[in-house]
């Protein structure tokens, strides 16, 4: 009798703790409220796979430009490239600065936009979400009420169809341009890319993020990355301009300048 009571009490306490941990913000219609400014931490943007710290490519930047190590965010640790694609990835890595589209301030695509070292903001309406990213002012409109529709045209940030699975926001992203990459180490995809993202609140200030990446021309099977996203709690936090087009004009057009 006594033992049973203890077990029940422990159960109540545990349940209480769990409920407190998963208290999340909700909209008036009871859905999770994802409004706010979020950002990934860590070094997935450098390399999704496990990687050691390394010197950066710009000598003058010294320690400030060095690349931090990372435990990796790929389930199973390794991206399952086809043999041919693995060669391409190695070449991308060897010619990183020449080939990485983000060096040129191109729109980052999905999922790379999510884990760049820049904040992004979710603006959540019942039928439409806007995800707006500081990097290059990239935007995605997520349609919550058109299941089964298809992209009418390819775009850098894709065609985004959202739905709720319990408290998880699921977004299927198709119609992305083949030119985007997945990180700064040459991980890439082809025109057949499909991304399924899952955003699950794990408290008021944490979103657990997962993305399943499918592209049969490049990968032998679908594979998954996961990481937490954190709410930016800075006072009066807001996104600021990062209109990087202006910062890459010398890089892209300097060779066409009139000789002085």
């Amino acid at each position, binding site marked *: 009798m006594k033992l049973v009571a203890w077990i029940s009490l422990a159960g109540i306490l545990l349940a209480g703790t769990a409920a407190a941990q998963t208290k999340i913000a909700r*909209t*008036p*219609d009871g859905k999770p409220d994802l*409004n706010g400014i979020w950002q990934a931490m860590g070094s997935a943007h450098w390399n999704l796979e496990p990687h050691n710290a390394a010197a950066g490519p710009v000598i003058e930047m010294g320690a400030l430009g060095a690349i931090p190590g990372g435990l990796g965010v790929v389930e199973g640790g390794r991206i399952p490239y086809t043999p041919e694609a693995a060669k391409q990835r190695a070449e991308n890595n060897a010619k990183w600065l020449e080939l990485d589209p983000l060096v040129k*301030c*191109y*729109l980052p695509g999905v999922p790379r936009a999510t884990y760049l070292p820049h904040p992004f*903001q979710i*603006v*959540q*309406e*019942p039928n*439409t979400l*806007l995800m*707006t990213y500081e990097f*290059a*002012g*990239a*935007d995605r*409109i997520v349609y919550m009420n058109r299941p089964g529709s298809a992209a009418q*045209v390819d*775009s*850098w*940030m894709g065609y985004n169809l959202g739905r709720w699975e319990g408290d998880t926001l699921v977004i299927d992203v198709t119609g992305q*341009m083949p*030119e985007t990459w997945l990180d700064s180490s040459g991980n890439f995809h082809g025109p057949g890319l499909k991304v399924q993202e899952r955003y699950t609140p794990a408290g008021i200030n944490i979103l657990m993020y997962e993305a399943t990446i499918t592209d049969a021309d490049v990968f032998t099977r679908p594979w998954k990355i996961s990481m937490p996203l954190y709410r930016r709690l800075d006072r*009066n936090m*807001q*996104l*600021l*301009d990062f*209109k990087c*087009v*202006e910062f890459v*004009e010398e890089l*892209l*057009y*300097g060779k*066409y*300048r*009139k*000789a002085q």
Partner: protein
Amino acid sequence: MRTVLAIGVIAALGVGVAQAAEPAKPAAKKYVAPRTESGQPDLRGVWNYGSDTPFERPAQFKDREFLTPEEAATISKQIRDRSAQIEAGDGGTPIDPTGGYNQFWMDYFGQGANLRTSLVIDPPDGRLPPVQPGVKVENGGLGPDTNGVRPVRFRVGGVRKDGPEDRGLSERCLMGYSSGPPFVPSLYNNIVQIFQTRTHAVILTEMIHDARIVPLDGRAAIDPRLTQWSGDSRGRWEGDTLVVETRNFTDKTTSFRGAGTGQDLHLTERFTRVGPNRVDYQFTIDDPTTYTKPFTALIPMVRAEGDLYEYACHEGNYGLSNILSGARQDERDAAAKQGDSPK
């Protein structure tokens, strides 16, 4: 490009006024906007701010503020007929010699359904006030380069072709040619999507995918040393009108059109849902450094069918490379002609 074209087309036609689909009459019954889940007037959706009403009132209308519906219909037909004539001809016009901008692009006829003789409603003469003495006014355009000085703050055309900084902001994919802020009608792509939550509004213009995020929570302005290409906006509800005040513009854009810089610009925009498919967009430019008086324009926006699409300008900006490399080739050719060896 199209701002200039629009001005050109309307100037060529002498007048330009929308057809009267939703004529402005004394309202019999006050329209009450539907509410969002947080109780705000619902401005959500994709809106088209295109219009064939001239921005400033053509001289012939003097102090007349409104046309009759019959006059509006006649003028609208003239615009369409003239446009069709251009289409049926060999396509070239002085400002668009290749005829590249044919009917396919035109998306402004009568969108706003407006009987006004100008979009400017204040000053009452429908004309922009004079700029302050000594203020630089440079409009750029599709014609020859202006040979002006850097920084180039206008959007279309350029001053020279020596480097990217000699070109207008829209050729560099930095700012859309008509997307403001404030946004003003041009030939096409007059598309904006408004998002709303309890604490924020977002004004997303299709041109250059610029999302202007407007906190509605009464927070303080950002530090005056911070400047933003589209300014820094704060919003509030005044009755059923969303009022957005924007400051902290850079000195890299003009105050309005070709005049001055945005540094001291104080922009006030008012968004009011006035019908199931219409939002009135009113903006006031208050910039005593650039203009001798504030002025206000009213642009009716109609609900757009379809989505706002991604306008990825920079990613495909072959134009800027070609303009600059073409100019270098011209220089080499000219040098070769003179018997010099190219540098």
